[in-house]
């Protein structure tokens, strides 16, 4: 069970909003890079986010670059899951590969600051603040296995290959 507060974002949050190319020189210095997480979408995010919190977004979250640093700095900020209406393909795969759950659901009634509780195995999101409850879409099985192992690297270390 995951529990935390919702940080709300709109549609079309790109990888440049999450971690802009101008910080590419910090990509081998992850603690410094992580200080700029979501900077161009909400400059106050890095200072306010706490371990366990959620990013709640609209359509096409994470569009753009293949930079795995985007989900990586979100994970390093303590975010325990991303909830969005839709997610860009590469970002989705990258987040799961880092063991960061991305849940596809109708985020319209989840408001900024709401206390959320997520049951990953039951596929349920509860908004404790307003009492709303909703289901999130199924994650493909191969991705669930990778997520269960905490990401692609631990998965490959354990199994040595992909298992369908």
């Amino acid at each position: 069970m995951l529990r935390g507060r919702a940080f709300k974002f709109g549609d079309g949050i790109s990888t440049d909003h999450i971690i802009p190319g101008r910080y590419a020189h910090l990509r081998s210095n992850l603690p410094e890079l992580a200080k700029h997480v979501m900077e161009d979408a909400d400059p106050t995010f890095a200072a306010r986010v706490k371990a366990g919190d959620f990013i709640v977004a609209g359509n096409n979250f994470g569009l753009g670059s293949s930079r795995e640093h985007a989900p990586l700095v979100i994970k390093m900020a303590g975010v325990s899951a991303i909830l969005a209406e839709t997610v860009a393909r590469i970002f989705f795969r990258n987040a799961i590969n880092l063991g960061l759950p991305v849940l596809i659901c109708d985020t319209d009634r989840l408001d900024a600051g709401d206390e959320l509780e997520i049951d990953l195995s039951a596929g349920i999101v509860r908004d404790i603040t307003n009492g709303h409850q909703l289901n999130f879409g199924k994650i493909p099985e191969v991705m669930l296995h990778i997520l269960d192992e905490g990401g692609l690297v631990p998965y490959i270390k354990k199994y040595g290959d992909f298992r369908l």
Partner: protein
Amino acid sequence: MGKTLAEKILSHKSGSDARAGDIVIASIDLSFVQDTTGPLTVRQYQNSGFDKLVNPQRTVLFIDHAAPSPNNALSNDHTLLRDFARQKGCIISDVGEGVCHQRVIEDFARPGDVIVGADSHTVTAGGLGSFATGMGSSDVAVAFGLGRTWFRVPETFKIEVSGSFTKGVYAKDLILHLIGMIGADGATYKSLEFGGDAVKRMSMSGRFTIANMAVEAGAKVGLFPSDEMTRKYLIAQGREKDYKPLVPDTDAVYERTINIEAANLVPTVARPHTVDNTAPARELKGTKIQQVVIGTCTNGRLEDMAVATGILKGKKTQHSVRVLVAPASRRILLEAIEAGYVQTLLEAGAIILPPGCGPCLGLHQGVLADGESCLSTANRNFEGRMGSPKSYIYLGSPATAAATALTGEITDPREVM
């Protein structure tokens, strides 16, 4: 029931009857990284416990995004990549050789290949019929070590283009128009497959421009058939043996078919800050521009240089505009010098940058100031991408870029041709 290009390639490479929606494990013919995703790939490769690359001669590290390096930290990343290449015996394409996607189509990609690259514009090689897609560092690290990865076989949108392009209208205008029509997430997880009589006649350069931007509609791949045009291109690269014809089955099943009449297209521009925010160039007249960029993996090929040169020949660019030209590879720069384009561009007032990604992603070589606007031939105009989060990026064809360089404001190229 017939197969789309994506289903055909993934069937062959997975040894199964791959159909849209299936999950398959496919062998990989080429895997690569660039200098901003490569260092993390190297670390994930080591963390995964791999020791040997499965295919060193089909594993490539490109130093192109920050080339030459603008600072110490990125220089250290370059050193890390060079050391890895030396230790593992893989190929390194160092500073000055060009943008990864251009180098991939010149020297590596083959029709029917599966290619994974740690860069979203890996889709470019779809222009010659490779199932080429962008992935993150962890996925590519595993591809380095295993030589295979999993794919969900995508559903396909067929884009049928018929008729002829009118003067001043190019492949770039077509893809901007398409993305404007279906949206920046209009093809998420899908394969875009291009066909029709206009595609048959389309140059490889135009095909690469279109395939390159498939990801800007969210697509996994942008695929073109491999035909006579492809064969000629591969011969010109000294790779005729890599040619094989590849077409979709006539009874392939498409999720959606979109028909585009080329004659109806006009010079098109994507306005800040999303690629689907398109408008005809003529409607943006009066928009002042401080920097023009001609180049990148989208439009940095010889044909693009020729179009820009044709418009700028014997004229002077506006003093208020910095006109940056970055040929996509060393080969293209040499060809542009031989054709006299570089001389003409310099005389017109342009600045020639070394082959590479140039200012496209805000690292160096033309970082935008607060409040500045840029007209670029690149593929992405996100907020803050080229520098200041308070700057503005417009995307257009090399012709629109050259016309804009002459006037200092966004200009429909037909006005100056």
